[in-house]
């Protein structure tokens, strides 16, 4: 905070000019006025985004809604090792493992549910994943539904969903 070399705040003595108030009011408004003038003449530089008509651009590293990666044949890459659900601080990943008919895969998730309402988007699941099977790179940050149970998304949804966020 700039103090102009003077003591301000409670109990500080005010001089005559300060006691007149009018000058001080405009000095206080100076910041506002400066921005007002600049925004009028340089409207393009304004940081305000006209959401939802205009969507903000986030960094590529932004953690959006999860997705499950597919193998070449479209089956999940996930091997149901439970690393993500173990690492999850919100306890929002629920996996049921099963025997895969292909012995080279051996284990796969029969069920893979994420409770998006519990998720805190910390990204520990994708960091824990040894198979790069779960990613949060969809960039989807608007997660909207009209009932709570729709936020409980299953394996098929996480594998194939192309929607932009509305569940």
């Amino acid at each position, binding site marked *: 905070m700039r103090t102009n070399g003077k003591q301000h705040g409670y109990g500080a003595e005010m001089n005559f000019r300060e006691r007149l108030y009018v000058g001080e009011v405009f000095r206080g408004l100076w910041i506002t006025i400066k921005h007002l003038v600049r925004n009028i003449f340089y409207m393009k530089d304004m940081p305000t985004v006209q959401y939802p008509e205009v969507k903000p651009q986030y960094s590529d590293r932004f953690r959006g809604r999860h997705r499950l990666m597919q193998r070449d044949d479209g089956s999940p890459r996930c*091997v*149901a*090792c439970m690393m993500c659900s*173990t690492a999850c601080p919100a306890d929002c990943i629920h996996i049921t493992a099963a025997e895969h008919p292909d012995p080279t895969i051996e284990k796969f998730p029969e069920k893979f549910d994420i409770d998006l309402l519990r998720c805190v988007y910390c990204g520990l699941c994708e960091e824990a994943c040894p198979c790069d099977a779960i990613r949060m790179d969809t960039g989807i940050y608007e997660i909207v539904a009209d009932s709570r149970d729709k936020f409980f998304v299953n394996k098929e949804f996480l594998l194939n969903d192309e929607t932009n966020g509305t569940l």
Partner: protein
Amino acid sequence: MVKLTIDGQELEFTEGTSLFDACREARGEALPHFCYHPDLPIAGVCRLCQVEIEGMPKLTIACNTTVRDGMVVFTRNERVRKAAQQTLEMHLINHPVDCPICDQAGECGLQNQYMEYGLYESEVEKGDKVTKAKAQVIGPHVILDTERCVLCTRCVRFCDHVTGTGELGIFNRGDRAEVGIAPGKELNNNYSLNTVDICPVGALTSRDFRFKKRVWLLKSTQTICPGCATGCNIRVDHEADRIFRIKPRLNADVNGRWMCDFGRLEYRRVHAESRLDAPLLADGDRQREASWDQVWSRLDALGGKGLFVVSPWQTLEEMDLFKGLGGGNTVVSGPSESGRGDGDEILLSTDRTPNRKSLAWLGIDELAGDELAARARAADGVVVVYGGDPVGEVPAFAEAVAGKTLVYLGTHRNATSDAAQVVVPTSAWAERDGIFVNAKGRLQLIRRVVARPGEAREDWRFLADWQGRTDDQTQPAGLPELRRGVAERVAALNGQDLNTIGASGSAVAEADTGGDA
């Protein structure tokens, strides 16, 4: 006694002690190892427990060396450490490192020892590994993954020396060597799941537990196996009120480090579909769920003399309470034919009930089926059956109770519960605390592991409540008080304090009680 120096510490051991055990005592932790197992003969194949002994030109494996006077041993110097690290690297050359899909992950010897001795930079390309058969079903309970195997031969030695069945062996040589099943055989002995326990890696895994749960999510409770009269000490692994597996717990006086497959899979009964979870009252031909008030008013109205039948699956405290509840009525157990099966010389008893000994201690007569039916016929109106399934097992008993009021206290739906006018759901073995007395008269604690289903009651509380309604005596407020009462009433206990029984149980000086050992 021999005196030797381990890592600068001078210690004394009895002659014949293995250097491995001596080092464990000196270090406070075991040397790295795969093949050494205290209950199996020494194989000396994993080469991980090498230590430096002064005067010896090369490192020596501790497990196959006995202590000698004046030995100077180093277990923590750089040479020993390096040897363990290099040996571990050799073990890992062809290991698939498929920990994410391996059930052993979290309790794996390779993982644990790699954390301490690992080289971290593998010198082997992933593509160079020798691949072997994975996920082979080698028996009703066991799956073999030869790629993960470190060839410690523990399982082979177990089948050769403990069960004597010799199903397993090491086949081929060099990096193609693998554990396998002898031609035409199957790993189907009743102790096969112990090979899964002793396997230090994920080569042998349980079919029952396969992919059910990651081991680090499980909580353990120490209790006693209800499968037979041996009363093996066990550890129940459970999560969120569901039991996932049972593992044996070391008790040299009862079961050592082993337990049988039959007992290990007993937990499935706890979560069976047929569990009773609400009180039922007969309503015409059908049974309908009732409130506890309705049940109590029905039970209060019973009155009269009758027959009280208790099963050997109940705990010592419950049997004692039930006997007290019977009061002037005849309290018996039966049919004595139930809960019998084939035994073996290792652990499994012919008596497949956990607590038959207590019946003898409490002076409750065990009757054969016919005799039990005769007693039921002679009973005055009321027959109370606590546990077991006499109606299903003895047709004559079913006929005898047909016109009478049958009250069933039990855990599962069966012929007896179907025939009963009043059904009270009680707790299964893993849902209550109590004492089982094994065939040798050892008192052992069973512990509550999971929650009871629905409205099932804790047995002793229900019995105490019922007794409180029939007489004016104050009922015990808790298990400790109840146990003090039991200790006074049962002569065979010789004044043993039932509240001081520890995790490994307590043997009672055997008095002649006429029980079948």
